[in-house]
């Protein structure tokens, strides 16, 4: 026997099964003849993602096609998920450049700190979400892959323009 069940009085005087059924059928019929279809037909149509969307990374390049990164080491330091692996190198002129720059997109939490902290505006999180791979290893993006990405990059939140106007 139910002990702690609250039994509230229903307004029995107004109950009518037939009326309620007809009312419900009217509602479903209205939706049937005039559906508010909001489904996006995905592969053909794509959802407009926000300019502040933070997806898989992209490394911007200079005019000569080299990565803008100067291997300062700020992004692996700030990264809360510890997913950036950076080995700095130095060329004959004393310019630092990354020997190895790898981002494990599985570890990444897409916080966008790397983009915010980068002094050279080299590493960016991108407006992109189609990331399927056949292997886990495929999700470790190396420098070559990061520079080869072409998708638009994220516009970070600007405190002076909080609504993005």
């Amino acid at each position, binding site marked *: 026997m139910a002990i702690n069940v609250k039994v509230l009085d229903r307004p029995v005087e*107004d109950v009518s099964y037939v009326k309620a059924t007809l009312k419900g059928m009217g509602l479903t019929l209205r939706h049937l003849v005039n559906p508010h279809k909001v489904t996006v037909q995905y592969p053909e149509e794509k959802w407009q993602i926000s300019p502040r969307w933070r997806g898989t990374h992209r490394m911007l390049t200079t005019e000569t096609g080299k990565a803008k990164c100067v291997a300062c080491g700020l992004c692996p330091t700030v990264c809360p998920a510890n997913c950036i692996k950076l080995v700095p190198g130095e060329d004959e002129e004393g310019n630092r450049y990354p020997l190895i720059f790898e981002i494990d997109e599985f570890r990444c939490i897409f916080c966008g700190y790397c983009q915010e902290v980068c002094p050279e505006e080299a590493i960016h999180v991108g407006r992109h979400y189609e990331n399927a791979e056949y292997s886990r290893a495929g999700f470790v993006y190396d420098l070559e892959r990061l520079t080869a990405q072409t998708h638009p990059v994220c516009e970070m939140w600007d405190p002076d323009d909080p609504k993005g106007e």
Partner: protein
Amino acid sequence: MIPHSLLLQAANPQLPPAGGGTFVIFTVVKMIAVFTVYMIGVALLTLAERKISAWIQDRHGPNRVGPGGIGQPFADGLKNFMKEETYPEAAYKPLFILAPILSFIPALTTWCVIPFASPLPTRWGRMDMVVADLPVGFLFILAISSLGVYGIVLAGWASNNKYALLGGLRSSAQMISYEISLGMSTIPVLLLAGNVTLNSIITQQAYGGWNVVNLTLAFFIFLVAAFAETNRLPFDFPEAESELIAGYHTEYSAMKFSLFFIAEYANMVTASALMVTLFFGGWDVPFTARDNIGPFSGWLTLLSLVIFAAKLLFFLFFFMWIRWTLPRFRYDQLMSLGWKIMLPLALAYIIVIAGVILVLETAGIGPGAMYSSIMGVVNIVIVMVVFTILDHGRIISPAYGRLESVRLARLRAVAARSPLATGVSR
């Protein structure tokens, strides 16, 4: 050499064929045609169900296979053929295999006595547009359609799965409860027609008006019982996904599951066809009274076929419409609706209608305008009484129905003090 005149001898197109050979050939042709159309129709119904459910829920529904998703049923069929058949280790295999067959065959068999068009005159004699014109037509349907439950019960038992068994149990209880009101609700129809062949029921309606006009309450009871008989929402207790996983077909896979699925839709088609035949004049073309006595013609056959299909499709749509509108009842509500409301209502209705017919006959009023209008007036009164007075201010088997009155009063007192009722938050 057999003279061909023995097999297909020319005959009067307006009369039934004389030779037995012609009859056999006619029957085989009709069987093949009806079976083909029926199976394709059932396949398309699964698509229609998904499409309608999608539209009602503001979605698109399947639209990838062929234009508008028209190839979806065939893709599903192919998938089910290719899938692995799994047998639970503890299942009783013979019955496990027999069950889908047992639910599939009666679903198909019932269709064969339903007349779907006016007779077609051919040069070898008149072809009745019904696969088997049984003299006991309606009784045959009642007998065979109740066999379908064996498939479900056996599936539930042979699966050796508690959910499947519960589904089977519920199915049998539900079928028994609603079979009675289903049968009872059709007795007024048979009283009016004075016969149990479906053809004479159609003929009676062509002259005396559709039964839905004269016997609305019988139609309503039949409709509700038909939903329960075909295990469609709001009475889909044998399946009850939220409670029983998939009920009786939890353990079934591939084509065996598909057979249950086809059987459900086939039952739906048969129930719709029965409603059309018993209450909506069958293939009778509306507003004409002359179309079921000769002379018949091919055009009339086509027209009546289209009319029948239109009525049938409306009811199939109605089944789906209801399914995506109403939630499932609670089990005790189902039982209480069946035994405490539907059955007494059907019994009382038989007595009233039989009384009216007796009075009319002793008064010497035969079938005609007077007869129909009296039936109509009686019907309006009954509908008013049932749908406004009986349906008003009542809850079928409320949740507190099983509490003792003392306990209920105490609970209500607690509830009245609760913040929910007083509107004061603590």
